[in-house]
């Protein structure tokens, strides 16, 4: 048995990939592995989000109350009812007021607080930590705290107002439409400010200090620095927080339910409360599903906008 030896064996370049490998084969394998890694998340998404949503979408075309053993096809009549029912239209208006007020005040206060905490002063770290407390606290606990503050009989607000002689009798803040809406907005803003503040502080810390100092040397005041340097720098952060705030406030339920139950009458019945009432107080699952689908449709535009921003930044 003889063995032939290639005289050029030591000098010939070693093949970089297997001669059997197809062009782009490595990338394809990576893609396949990537998809495999996505399977658990996609499965969870399908089971927990997609399937319930598709079922709700399906139910929204049916009449389905607890008195019925099987849902009955009604076409788009639930959607016609949703868009013509004064109560549901009222819920849209309440949602608009709540989302608008809660988002605007959360951002303004979050930004203001971030500007304060961005300045060096003694105890700043401790104050930053304490500022996160409302965010850490369960929303339902926060609702009970605010419920106690606004309570007409033994509330803190009435006690203070009476002590200082502003009022003669305890006021029922949660029993007036304006008072109840203000209370749920205040409670939600209190919960949201810490998170928004954290976003803004992160944005402020990436700001070029030399640019601000140069502006000050040129005679710019605080207002000018804020309007022409800080806010333009924070613009992407503001965009994200506005969208996230809107989505969060559109979805909000627990604080409102615990504080006012959607009342007085229907003053704080936002879409989430409307869906809950239709489904679990009136047992009208078909109508609740239709309201829910319309509710999701209202969340989609800000969600799309947010995702587009996110994708644009990652590309």
């Amino acid at each position, binding site marked *: 048995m003889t063995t032939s030896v290639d005289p050029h064996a030591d000098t010939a370049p070693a093949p970089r990939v297997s001669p059997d490998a197809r062009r782009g084969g490595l990338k394809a394998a990576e893609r396949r592995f990537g998809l495999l890694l996505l399977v658990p998340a996609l499965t969870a998404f399908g089971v927990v989000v997609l399937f319930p949503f598709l079922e709700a979408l399906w139910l929204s075309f049916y009449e389905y109350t607890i008195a019925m*053993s099987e849902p009955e096809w009604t076409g788009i009549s639930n959607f016609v009812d949703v868009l013509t029912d004064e109560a549901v239209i009222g819920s849209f208006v309440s949602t608009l007021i709540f989302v608008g007020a809660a988002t605007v005040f959360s951002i303004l206060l979050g930004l203001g607080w971030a500007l304060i905490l961005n300045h060096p002063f003694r105890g700043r770290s401790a104050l930053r930590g304490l500022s996160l407390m409302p965010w850490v606290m369960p929303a339902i606990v926060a609702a009970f705290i605010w419920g106690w503050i606004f309570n007409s009989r033994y509330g803190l607000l009435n006690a203070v107002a009476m002590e200082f002689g502003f009022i003669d009798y305890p006021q029922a803040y949660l029993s007036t439409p304006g008072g109840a809406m203000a209370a749920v907005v205040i409670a939600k803003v209190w919960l949201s400010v810490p998170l928004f503040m954290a976003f803004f502080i992160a944005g402020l810390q990436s700001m070029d200090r030399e640019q601000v100092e140069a502006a000050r040397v040129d005679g710019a005041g605080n207002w000018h620095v804020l309007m022409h340097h800080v806010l333009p720098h924070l613009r992407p952060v503001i965009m994200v927080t506005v969208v996230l705030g809107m989505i969060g406030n559109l979805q909000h339920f627990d604080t409102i339910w615990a504080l006012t139950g959607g009342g007085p009458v229907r003053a704080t019945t936002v879409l989430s409360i409307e869906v809950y009432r239709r489904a679990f*107080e009136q*047992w009208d699952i078909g109508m609740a599903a239709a309201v829910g689908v319309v509710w999701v449709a209202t969340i989609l535009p800000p969600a799309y906008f947010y995702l587009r921003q996110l994708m644009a930044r990652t590309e």
Partner: protein
Amino acid sequence: MTKITQSLAVCLAAAAFAVPAQADTVEFMNWTYTEDSGRDLIQSLMDGYAEASGNEVEPIGYAWSDINKNAFLRARTNTLPDIMQVQARFLPTIANIEQVQDLNEVFGQETLEAMIPASFLAMGQVDGRQVALPWIAGTIGMVANQRVLDAAGVTEIPDTVEEFREALVQVRDNVPNSVPYTMATKNNASILLDYLIWSWTFGADVIDAEGNADVNSPEGVAALEFMVGLMNDRLAAPEIDRPDARRLFGQEASAFYFDAPSAKNFAADFSGQGEDYAVNIIPMETPTLEEDGTPAAIQWGHVLVMFNEDNASPDSAASGFLMNLLSDEVLVDFALVKGALPPTVSGLDSEEVKSDGYMTAWAEAAVAPRANPIAPLSNGGAISDIIGEEVQAALLGQKTPQEAADDLQARLEEALAEE
């Protein structure tokens, strides 16, 4: 070989007999278990049955306000319990669940009629089916706190609406920081009960015998005007739900409110003095327009529902537990502790019930209780919300009583047409 086979068969048979019968587990869904005052009570009932039968009872507790919703969700996922506690007025809704068993077919109609008086047995009937058995029974009526009346200088329990109003004024003027009558003004389901009683008192039916809305009649408007007047004169207050009323009443910051007989237990808890405080709780007739009028009250009770066809045999563990709950040894004490009547023939005839002064007084005060007319309606939840919203709008001054009555009439007519 045959011998071996026979020996094996004998051994297997012996082994089968030697293994003790597997204990069944009964799932008991109820809200009393979630209440501080009821948890130990329910636990002792379950332990008692488990000890006597060898079966186990697993409690599934939901708050009162959540239990119907969870029954509905469990029905959709085939996870219904074996036995469920249901508020009698919600039974027509729960009876729509397909797995509810007709207890006449389980125990026999004659057996049940011999065991439970017809008037109480009716609490568990829907569309001719015996879908539940009454557990504890009573009425929703008015209670007065004697300590508060003494502090206010009210010497007699008011008989008429006019006397009632005068008593409220006395309480307001003499008991600081009090809500003389803790009328429900916050939760639709609670507002409904106060509104029904006052409407009946003023002669309005709310929903008449033919099933038509009757709320903007002069009597209906007068009832609303009376309720609004109490608010305007600070004799009642906003932001009051039944739990608020119970707390204020027990803490001597309220003189009157409407509740079930279990008002005694809540007052005992909130007073901080326990059962000793119960002597101050006076069951009274709802004030009437005229002195010889019929006081209004609403039928009230808790019933027990059985789910699942597997349980539909008198020998099943679920049937055994149900009958155990309704036995004199278990039921009489439980009902009296809950401040209610045991709705069985032998329970009502027991010495303990006859010698209970509170329950005797309660029964005397509830002369002619009426059924809640909203509860049997298929869209009763929606109608309850409509009534609650319109009455609340009047109470909070968002509408005049006449406007609220007109809007309520129109919305009820539309909702009843869909029923």
